[in-house]
């Protein structure tokens, strides 16, 4: 009985002693560290442009020109709107013309802007001066040397010559790359 108690007491003492040694050892080998934290928020910009009908809501889908080419020169008024966060200096459109009736080839499409004025969509006149942005029948057409601010738009008239033999569905798909925005910048502050 007595030996058992002594053994138990010795065991407890040993455990306590070892724990003490372990704690002492830990604190002796710990390293004091100085630390400082700071936080920063970083956001990237975006380059994006969409084509939509005049005064129509923005949709991120290809724009289908609504016009009849069989009754004479056809017009469509549309807007290219900068929906990104960086001003745009140019962009491209991919033109697709799908023949719906007849067997004639599609005509050229002229993209024009009204400088210093506005379009009259009824009389098809410009109160300023008309300049041509580009012409193509199909494929990729690039508009360069533009300046479209964030949230702003470029109003354009699409025009094509009459085609008495065939009708077409004309679709515009916008494209913009890194090359169409400002150059990289270095800032210090």
């Amino acid at each position, binding site marked *: 009985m007595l030996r058992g108690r002594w053994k138990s007491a010795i065991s407890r003492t040993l455990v306590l002693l070892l724990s003490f040694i372990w704690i002492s050892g830990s604190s002796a080998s710990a390293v004091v560290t100085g630390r400082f934290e700071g936080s920063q928020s970083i956001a*990237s910009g975006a380059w994006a442009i969409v084509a939509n009908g005049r005064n129509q809501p923005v949709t991120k889908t290809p724009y289908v020109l609504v016009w009849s080419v069989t009754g004479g020169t056809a017009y469509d008024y549309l807007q290219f709107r900068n929906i990104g966060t960086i001003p745009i200096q140019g962009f491209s459109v991919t033109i697709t013309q799908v023949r719906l009736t007849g067997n004639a080839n599609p005509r050229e499409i002229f993209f024009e802007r009204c400088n210093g004025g506005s379009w009259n969509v009824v009389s098809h006149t410009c109160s300023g001066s008309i300049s041509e942005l580009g012409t193509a029948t199909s494929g990729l057409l690039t508009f360069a040397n533009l300046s479209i601010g964030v949230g702003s738009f470029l109003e354009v008239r699409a025009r094509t010559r009459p085609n008495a033999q065939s009708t077409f569905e004309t679709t515009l798909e916008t494209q913009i790359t890194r090359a169409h925005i400002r150059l990289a910048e270095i800032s210090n502050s």
Partner: protein
Amino acid sequence: MDMKMDMKKGRHRWRSFAGIAIVLSLGAMMGQGVLSSLNATVSNVNPQNNNSGTMILDLASAGNGFGSAINNLAPGDVVNRYVTLTNSGTLDGIGLSLKTAQSGTQSLITDGTGLVTTKALRLTISECDVAWNTSNGQCTGVTTTQVTSRTIGSLTTAAPFSDGSMPSADVRYLQVKIELPNQDETTINGNFPSNTVQEGSVNITYTFDLAQRVAVTTNS
């Protein structure tokens, strides 16, 4: 019989031994004066002063520092921010390092892999031995790259400074360069490609760590 007698004798011897031990222990506890006749004691008149050192690392903005957000980065853009680290503790420090914790758009944190070729934000830390001109990024002294360019995501593992020693009161003038590598993306009909770096955001917490100098044993 003999065995019982022996056991009894053993117990008696044990009890006697225990009794003596208890008496001696009590005696020792009640006062050494009882057991020893003479004592000489001396102590220092002025208490010895023992101070432990401190490790304090301070960070201050030079210019905008980290406090001001960086917005609207385009590929190729570089934004330099400036901070000043000071070892305000009394101990010399070693092993200065930087690590970050970040959350937000993954394509800005780590590079794309496989078919995804996006490049994430890069960070570089340079030091000037005198204060930077935070307006134009010029260092009129000597510039040293302390942490070479690497993605933000890789800094979850601490990056050691090339010169990590900071004696007490040492001041380090740091330029923290954030760069979105030049890369191209085509946005079609206003829709970004998958894994885009556009319109992303990241919140970064920078942690600078400085360890105490190696412990020393002195004799004097």
